């Protein structure tokens, strides 16, 4: 019951604010949505606590039948287990804080009620996604967050760049969704059901099923790849990542909620949810690790040279998601969810902190025009430090525990692809620390590079924005060591219950404990090294980076332009597609499809004119045509009788 309230309270808030927001005013719309979110987070946290600590039984909350056609059944039901409970608690808490923060951040906007309605709608969709009891309901939530994301990225719809970014996000996600939808179909074909409990109970029976597409494969591998393609789209993994940096066109709270803390982690959640099946698909898992590791490294390199404060954090998100997939790929689903959890707090914190900076700097996002403001906004400065420490994986902040766990698991998996994930992750950890401190130093230290006018306006954000920052900062500090032992320790099964099931051969969690000492230490060392380099380059010798960029111009431009992914897609996909579309439009539609009816119409009117011409009123002509007709008919009759 608590669980259902947690899921549906945001929907109520969204509907009230969306339908009546204009009538009841911004204040009331904010109040309604925030109250609903607070209610949801109280219920969400209590449901989590009573399940994990109170011994409440896991199960499903049935809400009714959705579809019932032949052998295909789908119901509305909330799955209540450790995985969904932890996600619900995290989503409701983070979303509530971001709602509150938005009151301050969006105070100058003209349609605040619309913004809050969308935010709550997103929260509801995300909760539907994580509590789904079957794949179709999960897909419903999946598409729901996609829609909310589209609406929020394009929230400032009078900006062309925002509209373009919204469309890009939607289209790129469709590509992933196609894979996901086909994956669902294949799950139904294989298991005869899309219900999680039915699927997971039957995992043993279908192990040797095969599926033929471009050769014959084990069905589990194909399912795993297809579901992962869906996850790649939603979680912005290499290849389908191009939408995430552009999504920063949305208001900063949106970036914090959707494109850092919650929605983009849906793919990771999907991997964990499907752990019982994936654990029997080593090929698919290897692919997951490969993409995850590559993404972690790729995004970290790009993050090092970006100048837009939000884009740096966006690439860091992309990179951190790569970590989570590495963990999932080596079978340490618990570690991936753990990182998801800690990441949600410190990444939301970083984004909101960045928002606070942008707010203070009169909507300036370019770090090259910041600097020297740390004394003016000390609170923001402090929380940004906390966020960066957590992100950089410095002891004892949250990121330290989760990132270390992932790297250890990758090492401990003892496969080649696991090694690849480990080295990519390790390298990325150094880069992460580097660009985090680059961000801190460029933003807060040095000489002020903004104009005089802006600097006069720099001010600390109001309490409604700073209080959520402080709460998130607390989360970024404590979630690591509070949950580390429970989620990953010896007795992880007591926490997770049946929500994460692994194959009997999967001992990665155990092996993690026994990795060599240097493996456990190396992330911290390389992280500190990264910090040191950043300090040297940007604090001690601020002229060096420009020289470096000039010296290694090729590399610099390659990174600045994000490995030319956008240009590549533009040349290979977008432009040919536009050309094809234009051809189909102008030739296919305008000429052929429109031409046929138009031509027929012209033909008809022309023949009308011809037909009527004979009708000239002369009896002789009439009689003659009768006789001609008669002769014609007689001839036909005689010829063909």
């Amino acid at each position: 019951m608590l669980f259902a309230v947690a899921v549906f309270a945001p929907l109520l808030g969204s509907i009230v604010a969306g339908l009546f927001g204009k009538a009841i005013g911004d204040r009331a719309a904010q109040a309604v949505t925030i109250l609903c979110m607070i209610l949801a987070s109280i219920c969400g946290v209590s449901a989590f606590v009573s399940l994990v600590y109170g011994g409440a039984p896991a199960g499903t909350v049935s809400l009714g039948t959705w579809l019932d056609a032949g052998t295909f059944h789908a119901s509305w039901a909330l799955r209540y287990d450790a995985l969904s409970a932890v996600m619900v608690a995290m989503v409701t808490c983070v979303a509530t804080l971001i709602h509150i923060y938005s009151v301050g951040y969006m105070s100058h906007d003209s349609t605040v009620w619309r913004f809050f309605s969308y935010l709550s709608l997103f929260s509801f969709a995300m909760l539907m996604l994580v509590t789904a009891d079957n794949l179709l309901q999960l897909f419903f939530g999946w598409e729901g967050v996609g829609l909310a994301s589209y609406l929020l990225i394009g929230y400032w719809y009078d900006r062309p760049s925002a509209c373009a970014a919204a469309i890009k996000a939607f289209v790129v996600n469709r590509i992933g969704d196609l894979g996901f939808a086909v994956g669902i179909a294949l799950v139904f074909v294989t298991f005869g059901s899309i219900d999680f409990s039915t699927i997971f109970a039957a995992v043993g029976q279908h192990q040797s099923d095969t599926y033929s597409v471009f050769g014959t494969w084990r069905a589990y591998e194909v399912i795993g790849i297809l579901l992962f393609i869906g996850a790649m789209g939603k979680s912005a993994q290499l290849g389908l990542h191009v939408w995430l940096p552009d999504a920063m066109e949305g208001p900063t709270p949106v970036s914090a909620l959707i494109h850092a803390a919650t929605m983009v982690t849906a793919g990771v959640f999907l991997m964990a949810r499907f752990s019982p099946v994936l654990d029997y698909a080593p090929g698919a898992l290897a692919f997951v690790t490969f993409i995850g590791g590559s993404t972690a490294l790729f995004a970290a390199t790009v993050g090092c040279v970006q100048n837009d404060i939000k884009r740096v954090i966006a690439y860091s998100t992309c990179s951190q998601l790569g970590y989570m997939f590495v963990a999932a790929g080596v079978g340490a689903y618990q570690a991936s969810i753990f990182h998801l959890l800690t990441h949600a707090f410190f990444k939301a914190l970083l984004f909101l902190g960045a928002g606070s900076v942008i707010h203070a700097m009169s909507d300036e996002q370019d770090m090259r025009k910041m600097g020297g403001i740390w004394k003016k906004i000390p609170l923001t400065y402090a929380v940004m430090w906390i966020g960066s420490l957590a992100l950089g994986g410095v002891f004892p902040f949250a990121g330290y525990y989760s990132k270390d766990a992932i790297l250890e698991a990758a090492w401990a998996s003892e496969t080649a692809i696991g090694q690849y994930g480990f080295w990519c992750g390790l390298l990325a950890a150094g880069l992460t620390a580097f660009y985090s401190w680059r961000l801190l130093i460029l933003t807060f230290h040095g000489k002020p590079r903004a104009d005089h006018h802006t600097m006069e306006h720099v001010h600390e954000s109001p309490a409604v924005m700073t209080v959520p920052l402080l709460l998130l900062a607390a989360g970024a500090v404590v979630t690591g060591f509070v949950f580390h032992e429970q989620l990953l320790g010896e007795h992880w099964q007591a926490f997770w219950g049946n929500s994460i099931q692994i194959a009997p051969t999967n001992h990665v969690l155990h092996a993690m404990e026994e990795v060599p000492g240097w493996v456990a230490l190396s992330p911290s060392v390389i992280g500190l090294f990264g910090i040191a380099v950043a300090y040297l380059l940007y604090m001690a010798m601020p002229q060096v980076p420009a020289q470096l960029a000039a010296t290694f111009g090729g590399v610099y431009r390659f990174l600045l332009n994000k490995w030319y992914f956008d240009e590549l897609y533009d040349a290979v996909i977008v432009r040919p597609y536009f050309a094809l579309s234009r051809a189909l439009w102008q030739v296919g539609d305008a000429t052929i499809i429109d031409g046929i009816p138009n031509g027929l119409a012209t033909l008809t009117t022309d023949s009308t004119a011809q037909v009527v011409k004979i009708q000239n009123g002369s009896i002789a002509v009439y009689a003659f045509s009768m006789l001609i007709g008669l002769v014609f008919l007689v001839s036909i009759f005689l010829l063909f009788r």
Partner: protein
Amino acid sequence: MTWTAMNWTLAVPELVLACCGMGILVFGVLSKRETFQLCSMLTIGAFLLTGVLVLPGAYGVGYSGLFTSDAFSAFVKLLVLVAAALCVVVSLDYNEHVNLRRFEFPVLMLFCTVGMMLMASASNLMTMYVGTELMSLAIYVLAAFARDELRSAEAGLKYFVLGALASGLMLYGISLVYGFSGSMAFDKLAEALADPASASPGLVVGIVFIVAGLAFKVSAVPFHMWTPDVYEGAPTSITAFLGTAPKVAPMALLVRAMATPFGQLLVQWQQLIVLVSIASMLLGSLAAIGQRNIKRLMAYSSIGHMGYVLIGLAAGSVDGIRGVLIYLVTYVFMNVGTFACILAMRRRGKMLEGISDLAGLGRTDPAMALAFAVFMFGMAGIPPLSGFWGKYFIFSAAVQQGMWTLAVIGVLTSVVGAYYYINIVKVMYFDAPEEAFDPRPASLSFVAAVGGLFTTFFFVFPAPVVAAAEAAAKVLFR
């Protein structure tokens, strides 16, 4: 031959109607005052009386095989009587208005109806010819009834000259058939042609000539040329009449002639009918598009409708003939209703015939516009109006016989036809309103309402019409 073998009682309805006609004629001549209204009422009464006499259904063959009374003839006769009666009703006000209030008008319609009833019962080529001529002669006069008006006189003359040509063709065909088979009775002909191979070319040519004569009456292409001119020129009340009963009777006669005596030659005449049908549908739908005069438009519309009806005949099955009869029923009601509306197009005492004169009728006279729209949608064959069901029965019969081409062309041409029907609806509802029409007389509202209700609600109670049509069609295939 004995007196009883004559079976003259079978023709009682015709005899009664003819006697009534003569009585009304005498009354009209002797009366000192102008008796148009009274004679019209008497004519309607005579139609009703005849209809009551037809209903009991005394079936059999009389007059030594010249005259047949069966379910088919009864069906046709009732339809003809209803159509004629409704046409007299629509003429009541119009003839008063345009100075045609002469008692001969209803009397001529009455004798025309006698001729049509005779055609429905004809079972001999001679009866067929006599009935057709009786009908036609009356119509020649009626078409020229507004004799002081050039257009009407021209229409009458045109129709007469061309009709004489058609009669000549038919008569020549009859003589050919008689010459090559030795008989004029339908049953004898059927026996003689039991083996299709024995049909001589002369006989076949005779059949074509007979078809040509009847096709002229139903204005099927290529014998349609008179239709637009006569429709436009004749007084509108006569145009209304021309479009209904005088189409039904020749069509019924054509069906009986093709099915009974020449039924064994189906394969031969089928292609003839198919050609005529396709040509009629095409011309009816194409030529109507350019028309500005609503009477001319209705002329082309009737040509198209006859094309559809001929599909049913071409199918040459019970279902096909059933379709023909159902189509004729729906067509009569839609047509008479449409003309009731056309006759109501009068502004400050002046009759109007232009399609553009209907502009904005939806606002100035919503009831009439609604009725008009119903008829137009019905003629276009939009479900659930009766016109759709007529087409449905026809097309499904054609498809059952594997005549896909015919059905497809029928559907395509009705799409084209829908353009000009719905165009009228568009003019009525979306064009800028003109000045309102004069108030409608009750008689026209009545006929429009009858037609409209029948067209709209036919789909609710189609069973009586369909069952009667089925029974009538089966008679021909015994």
